């Protein structure tokens, strides 16, 4: 099989690499130049030379030259080796890793204190390229010396050095402690000054300011107040700059401000402006256009008001035109799908608009795209589109062109991919059209059950979530498939999962399994009632209201059955926790959570409804003080609780409780 191999006018690549270690400095310098010239802008050659071990050899030349004599030759060696290392790192992860592994970073950093401007330039450029990669090591801003060094970079008169300082911040500033440390050292002041500098200084400053502002209310407030709003006025100015890159970075900075302190941007009416600017930037054919959709996503994420503004600004049409024209760049494709997902995440009017533009097939086709990120984005978009009862009822989603690729994604080794697919599946299986048999025939239940045993608790919880939604108003056939695949004992184990999110979903699944046809209540009695017993034990120790709510509604559904079912629920209410323990229902009736009190009263209402054995059950509830507790709730502040309590007490009167 042919493979890329670096060709050279002055010998084979292996020879060239070995000449990098020559004892003759002249030979080393020529070899270095040759390698550098070959790899610049050529990813294939970079990878080939990395394989041949060129990076440690170049790093050794740099280290050796740093210690060597002879100003001109040394200077040349330093510059050429720094440029070569930067080039290896530029746009190639393996190159960054190799440069880091070769221990070249401290050597490059030393170049910044050289008296020779060319050497400083080459070192700064090279380091800047390295810090553009996620693989570069994190810079520790909490270390005093590091912080002082960073300040010295920002204070430099050399444009490449100040750019490097800003790049380091963009790369490494993540925590609020780091943001605060940078602010308190005066870094923000420096960056604001640099905004007025050259184009590259301005762009680098805007990007690093965004990193310092992001999700930090305290720092953002200080920046908003900084010199009577000078920083913000400057940033605002650049959203209409000539350079698309600058406009995008200024928008990103203002989005970070808005996310942290929405009052500012709303007051300035900037939300709509930002949407318009980002939609305009989307038309840029290059990297700026690729990134604009991500910025738009960040802006409108979870913001219903901005999603509506985006709709009014024709964003859905504009994004769809890109989809319809076909997208060769996976990053742009991913960004557009995510932006559409965000616009359609809350408002039905947005979903309708997207569907009316015949974009659904384009989104479902993207589930089979070669690039994983695009497939994940398609799942997220589908999840947003399917948050609609109206669309689900119209039967748009439960067909094989959607189900099969989604189920294939469940096999992906990445948890992020599995979760994205589970998110979409959870929505589309809510069955209003009775087409769930398609999902079952495609092996969907089997795969969800397998994932409910996954090591990752979020995967377990989300697969149970999907099964819960699948069994909402499902027929007996569907429920039988789920339970036979899952088994009663496994479901009981999941009810006792160490993670509360899993417990909650498992109990909600039981709730749906025993809803509908009265015979379905018998599911909880399978395998010697292992599910019912697990429910009772879990409710006795449940710490979170959400678990109590699902568990009590599940018990309530069982209690809506026959005498046998009701008596079994009574046993669960009283048998756990030992003789002196308070029945869990008593604890729930005292809860501050309206839904938990409501669910608990429904259990009692169903237990005391007119049915054989009701009088005996009532007596037992009365003896336990539960009826007295109910009497104290006739004016419960929650209307739902109040009404159910009154109905229950009304029923009790039928059995001769004259005290009611």
């Amino acid at each position, binding site marked *: 099989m042919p493979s890329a191999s670096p060709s050279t006018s002055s010998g084979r690549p292996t020879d060239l690499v070995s000449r990098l270690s020559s004892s003759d400095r002249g030979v080393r310098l020529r070899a270095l130049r040759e390698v550098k010239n070959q790899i610049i802008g050529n990813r294939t050659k970079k990878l080939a030379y990395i394989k041949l071990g060129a990076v440690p050899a170049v790093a050794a030349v740099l280290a050796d030259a740093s210690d060597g004599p002879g100003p001109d030759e040394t200077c040349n060696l330093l510059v050429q080796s720094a440029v070569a290392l930067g080039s290896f790192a530029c746009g190639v992860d393996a190159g960054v890793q190799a440069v880091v592994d070769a221990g070249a970073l401290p050597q490059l950093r030393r170049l910044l204190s050289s008296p020779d401007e060319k050497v400083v330039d080459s070192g700064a450029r090279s380091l800047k390229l390295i810090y553009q990669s996620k693989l570069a090591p994190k810079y520790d801003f909490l270390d005093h010396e590091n912080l002082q060094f960073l300040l010295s970079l920002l204070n430099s008169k050399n444009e490449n050095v100040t750019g490097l300082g800003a790049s380091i911040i963009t790369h490494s500033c993540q925590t609020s402690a780091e943001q605060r440390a940078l602010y308190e050292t005066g870094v923000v002041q420096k960056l604001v000054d640099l905004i007025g500098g050259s184009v590259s200084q301005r762009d680098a400053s805007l990007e690093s300011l965004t990193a310092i502002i992001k999700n930090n209310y305290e720092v953002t407030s200080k920046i908003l107040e900084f010199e009577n709003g000078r920083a913000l006025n400057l940033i605002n100015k650049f959203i209409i700059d000539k350079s698309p890159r600058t406009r995008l970075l200024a928008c990103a900075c203002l989005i970070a401000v808005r996310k942290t302190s929405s009052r500012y941007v709303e007051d300035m009416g900037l939300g709509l402006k930002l949407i318009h600017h980002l939609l305009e930037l989307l038309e840029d054919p290059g990297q700026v256009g690729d990134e604009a959709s991500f910025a738009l996503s960040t802006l409108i994420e979870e913001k219903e008001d901005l999603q509506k503004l985006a709709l009014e600004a024709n964003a859905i049409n504009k994004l769809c035109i890109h989809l319809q024209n076909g997208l060769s760049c996976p990053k742009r494709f991913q960004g557009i799908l995510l932006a559409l997902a965000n616009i359609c995440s809350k408002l039905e009017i947005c979903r309708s608009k997207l569907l009316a533009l015949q974009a659904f097939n384009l989104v479902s086709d993207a589930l089979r795209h070669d690039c994983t990120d695009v497939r994940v984005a398609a799942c997220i978009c589908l999840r947003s589109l399917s948050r609609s009862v109206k669309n689900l009822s119209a039967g748009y989603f439960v067909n094989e062109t959607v189900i099969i690729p989604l189920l294939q994604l469940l096999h992906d080794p990445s948890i992020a991919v599995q979760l994205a697919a589970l998110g979409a599946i959870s929505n589309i299986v809510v069955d209003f059209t009775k087409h769930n048999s398609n999902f079952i025939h495609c092996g969907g239940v089997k795969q969800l059950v397998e994932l409910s045993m996954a090591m990752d608790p979020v995967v377990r919880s989300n697969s149970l979530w999907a099964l819960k939604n699948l069994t909402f*108003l499902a027929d007996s056939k569907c429920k039988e498939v789920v339970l036979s695949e899952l088994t009663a004992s496994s479901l009981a184990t999941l009810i006792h999962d160490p993670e509360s999110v899993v417990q909650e979903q498992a109990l909600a699944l039981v709730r749906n399994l025993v809803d509908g046809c009265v015979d379905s209540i018998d599911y909880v009695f399978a395998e010697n009632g292992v599910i019912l017993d697990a429910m009772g034990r879990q409710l006795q120790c449940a710490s979170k209201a959400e678990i109590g709510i699902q568990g009590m509604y599940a018990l309530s559904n069982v209690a809506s059955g026959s005498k046998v079912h009701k008596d079994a629920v009574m046993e669960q209410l009283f048998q756990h926790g030992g003789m002196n323990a308070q029945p869990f229902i008593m604890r729930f009736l005292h809860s501050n959570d309206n839904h938990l009190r409501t669910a608990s009263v429904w259990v009692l209402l169903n237990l005391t409804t007119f049915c054989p054995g009701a009088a005996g059950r009532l007596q037992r509830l009365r003896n336990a003080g539960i009826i007295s507790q109910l009497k104290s709730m006739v004016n419960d502040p929650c209307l*739902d609780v109040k009404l159910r309590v009154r109905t229950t007490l009304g029923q009790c009167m039928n059995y001769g409780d004259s005290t009611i």
Partner: protein
Amino acid sequence: MPVRVVESSAPSQVSGASSGNTLPQACSLLTVGQTFSGTQNVSSLQNEKDEAWRVNVCIQGCDLDHGYLCGTMEALNVPMADTPVVTFWEGEIVDGKNYTFFTGKWEATPEDDIRHWTKFPSFSPLLSRVEADGGKTLDLSSYQYIFMRWKEQYFVNVGEDCGLTIAGFYYVCFSCSDGSISGFYYDPKSSPFQKLELKATNAGRSGFSFSTYEFQ
């Protein structure tokens, strides 16, 4: 110890300074999965029982924050249809925030609105406020009745050429106490005041059962 039951009063008016939630509270009988069964009189004359269609309703979606409800309505013995006719409807919950008692569309004037709402006995305590401002200042959070408009959007199982119309909409009153539903169909081109009467159903159970789903 006997406990005196304090009856809830009519909805109060929201004071200008009130910042509390005045939207109708969640009611477990008006949640997803709940089903209702009853009749719709296709004649305005209540005695003509033979002109009543049997109707089943299932709630499929509920979003109180947006005053939104939706579901399906199945008419069982429609004379001109071979099978039961199922429609998908969307509802507006009158909450003073998302929707008021005044429809403002679907060919319904404020006079039509008042004429229909006043058919519900539970509406009488609200009439004066509704006449004044559409009920925007009413605190409906502890009222036992929820007022809605249900508008059928499309036929689920038959074509639009089935000879039936879904041009009109229903004025609906739901009782949180027992889950009963009363409604009046309004379509200027159909018989006036066709009455819908539904009761919460429990699928042959001795009590009520509740299913659930949640979108991700």
